[in-house]
């Protein structure tokens, strides 16, 4: 088993009101899965993905990645862990605007500090080829369409061959045709690379592509 979530709870405190964002979440993910989290707005999709991706902390429960417990780790340890294990794809792409496509994609590899310059170059160009952006490596993000930017973001998430790719509404900012292309791309990369994908969406069309669907409502898993 790749990921195991046990009894995860998360409450947001904004002012005097407590918002229970996640209650008693239990979830298991195998390697190379392609799983969608679906649910209405405010149901806790983003919160769940953030907690799994270790960029948000739950208040109770356990998360195991490859049988390693994550909740007890320090901020620093978690950052190191994200460097290796997690790839993130964002709804708003979140590319670094001052960097070229190539520089954006190479960033995770640079952070790992274990590849030489030529290895990095091969990997980045190969990855860009896989996401269909060959030849665009010197463009800047703002010189690309939304779909192309999301492809860069996917390349950035996958270039280091992470065990898990977390994508919070990766298609929400795209038109439905482009959205489907992006999910298709994610799916084919899931098959080629063997990374386990967990993505959230509230788009019926996108959900159909998932091999497994987790429905969430009011912070609780329905099915």
């Amino acid at each position: 088993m790749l990921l195991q979530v046990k009894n995860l709870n998360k409450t947001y405190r904004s002012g005097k009101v407590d918002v229970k964002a996640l209650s008693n979440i239990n979830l298991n993910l195998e390697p190379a899965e392609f799983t969608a989290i679906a649910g209405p707005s405010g149901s806790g999709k983003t919160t769940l993905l953030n907690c799994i991706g270790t960029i948000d902390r739950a208040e109770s429960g356990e998360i195991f990645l490859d049988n390693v417990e994550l909740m007890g780790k320090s901020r620093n340890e978690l950052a190191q862990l994200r460097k290796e294990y997690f790839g993130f794809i964002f709804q708003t792409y979140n590319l670094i605007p001052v960097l070229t496509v190539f520089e954006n994609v190479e960033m995770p590899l640079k952070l790992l500090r274990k590849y030489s310059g030529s290895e990095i170059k091969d990997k980045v160009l190969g990855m860009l080829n896989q996401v269909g952006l060959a030849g665009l490596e010197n463009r800047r993000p703002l010189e690309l369409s939304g779909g192309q930017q999301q492809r860069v973001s996917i390349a950035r998430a996958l270039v280091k061959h992470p065990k898990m790719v977390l994508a919070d509404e990766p298609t929400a900012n795209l038109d439905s045709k482009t959205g489907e292309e992006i999910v298709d791309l994610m799916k084919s990369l899931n098959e080629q690379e063997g990374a386990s994908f967990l993505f959230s969406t509230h788009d019926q069309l996108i959900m159909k592509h998932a091999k497994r669907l987790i429905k969430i409502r009011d912070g609780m898993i329905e099915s």
Partner: protein
Amino acid sequence: MTYLFKLAFKNILRSKIRTILTFLILSFGVALYILLACLMAGFDKVSIKNVIDFETGHYKLRSPDFDEDHPYDLKNYLENSQALKTRVLKLGFVQGAAERVQFLAELDNSIDSAPVVAVGIGPQDNQVFSLEQYIIEGRLEPGGLLMGKSLAQDMGLQKDDLIYLTFRAQQGMYTSIEMLITGIVNSANPQVNNSMVFMNLDEAQKQLNTKQVTDITVKTDAFFKVKEYEPQIKAAAPNIQVYSWKKLSEDFTAMMTMKRKFQGIFLLMIMVIAVVGIVNTMLMSVYEKKAEIGTMKALGFTDQEVSNLFLFEGFLIGLAGGLMGLILGTLFNSWFYFVGMDITAMMGDQDIGMPIMGVVRSAWIADAYIKALLFATLASIVASYYPAKKVTKMEAMECLRTVQ
């Protein structure tokens, strides 16, 4: 580390107007500081030269009874000056010694009168003083008088005019003599120009009815070796008061110290402006880059790594601003070095507390360059520290939520 540095560099290269403005202010401050320091140093240099060449030499030897509060009192006279002079001249590093007799007198052109310092100068005066090189008209002739240009102008006098000089001789009697102006001197020392007249030593002594002199002025081979030479001079002149030029010009050396302090304050002000500007710029940049910071943290940048990114950015702004300031400062200072600044044209005959007049040039002070660059860079790093700390504390999730 190098990767973070490159990232910071890229951020700077594509920086906003705001960053460029901060950078410009910083470089301008650095340039002004350099200009100030170099100008002041130039002024000091000329001041020292003018004091030494026209007033103090490197040392003055005076009678043990010499009273500083009444420097022109006739009781101050130095006895056996000839023997003393010979002894001092035997010291290897002494290049010249000149006897002068100084007394207060009233200069009268039969319409107006003005108090002056009258100076009798010996034949070897030019071994120590630069007076002779600054004579613009005529020369000092037997029975004649040499006079500062400004004083002559004020009194409406010219070469070959006759004046009366009234003074008290040794026995206390007032004496009034008629003298011919045989030369005009236009020196770089305002005091010489405004209030001094010169005559031959033997004539002055005759009028004063004395064989003595006020002091012997000594010039050595290096003005900055004041401390080093002093004991030897003192040994050659036992029971004689020995004053170095530093001691004699305490007034304006005190001013030099003041100026140093003023420069220090100026540097501090630049630092404060830089710090405020950079803190502001960096904070804005941090808030604007919230999404980027969140993304980088999600990608696995540690808090330290993201914070370093901003520290490097501050460091680079400081370094680049500092270097730009050095270039600007060099440009500014070049003008004052090659063209100079006409103090007299700017300030007129006003006493500016420094023995300088005419065109004064700036100097080049390496020390100011090093200090300015160091401070600019340091200030920028210090200023980036707080914004960088802020970045450390920011939660990736919060940063990301702001955009979604």
